[in-house]
């Protein structure tokens, strides 16, 4: 039963991931990414990580996929629902990806003692919370600062650059903006 469920989840995950990288329409690729992330949430639930499954469904499927759809919609060049994805030749991607998979698969197969069953006890969300605010509290707080920095940085990078903004007018008198505004002030 466990193996059948795992096989179904793995199949859905790999098929949807292949659609993410091959879909001709970018919006379809984003939606297929949502399917991949949902099957990952299912896999987390099967692995006993119920809290992470919920976080995955909420943050990735609810937040990241929505953000991605916004990004695709904002940066498209043509009207309509079709956004061409413009793929290159598949040969080098297949070569590098395939050889990477073969290399790591051989390494996994050759590692002794990987499948030794260790009696691991179930991890509850309470255990996770104690770890967050206990042993890992420094990383936890650093992460919150990182998130704040990323949000501020994203706003600063994507802000519309406005040449007539008040910050420029505060510059020295020799700047072109100040020179242009000075006669208007004199007239008024």
């Amino acid at each position, binding site marked *: 039963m466990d193996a059948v469920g795992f096989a179904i989840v*793995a199949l859905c*995950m*790999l098929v949807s*991931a292949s659609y*993410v*990288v*091959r879909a001709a329409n*970018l919006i379809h*690729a984003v939606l297929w*990414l949502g399917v991949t992330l949902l099957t*990952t949430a299912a*896999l*987390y639930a*099967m*692995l*006993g*990580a119920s*809290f*992470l499954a919920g*976080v995955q469904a909420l*943050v990735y499927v609810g937040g*990241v996929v929505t*953000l*991605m759809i*916004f*990004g*695709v919609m904002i*940066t498209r060049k043509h009207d309509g629902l079709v956004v061409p*994805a*413009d*793929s290159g030749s*598949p040969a*080098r*991607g297949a070569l*590098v*990806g395939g050889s*990477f*998979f073969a290399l790591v*698969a051989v390494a*996994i*197969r050759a590692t002794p003692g*990987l*499948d030794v069953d*260790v009696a*691991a*006890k179930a*991890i509850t969300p309470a*255990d*996770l919370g104690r770890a967050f605010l206990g042993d*890992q509290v420094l990383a936890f707080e650093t*992460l919150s600062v*990182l*998130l704040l920095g*990323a*949000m501020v*940085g*994203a*706003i600063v*990078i*994507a802000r519309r650059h406005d040449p007539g903004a008040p910050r420029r007018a505060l510059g020295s008198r020799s700047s072109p903006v100040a020179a242009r505004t000075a006669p208007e002030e004199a007239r008024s």
Partner: protein
Amino acid sequence: MTLSTCLLLATALFSVGIYGLLTRRQVMAVLLCVELMANAANICFVAFSRFRGGVTGQVFASFSIAITVAEVAVGLAIVILLYRTRGDTRLDLASEMKE
């Protein structure tokens, strides 16, 4: 379902991400492939946490999710800036940082 099958699944997902990273030309499509690869790494964390015990794997997976979200926000801002300055988001046209 053993640890090695979970790791094999994560490796396969990562390889699909590599394939997309090397074939796609749109910046948004490349961001999608980076998401796939980060997801594969998270699967490894959770699988080790399940089969080797200990809470650290899940803690790291959740940290990794938060970092990925921050990366998506900054990446999208860069894509929007690229679109505004060049009117196109194809990667081979964006070969220099200056306008």
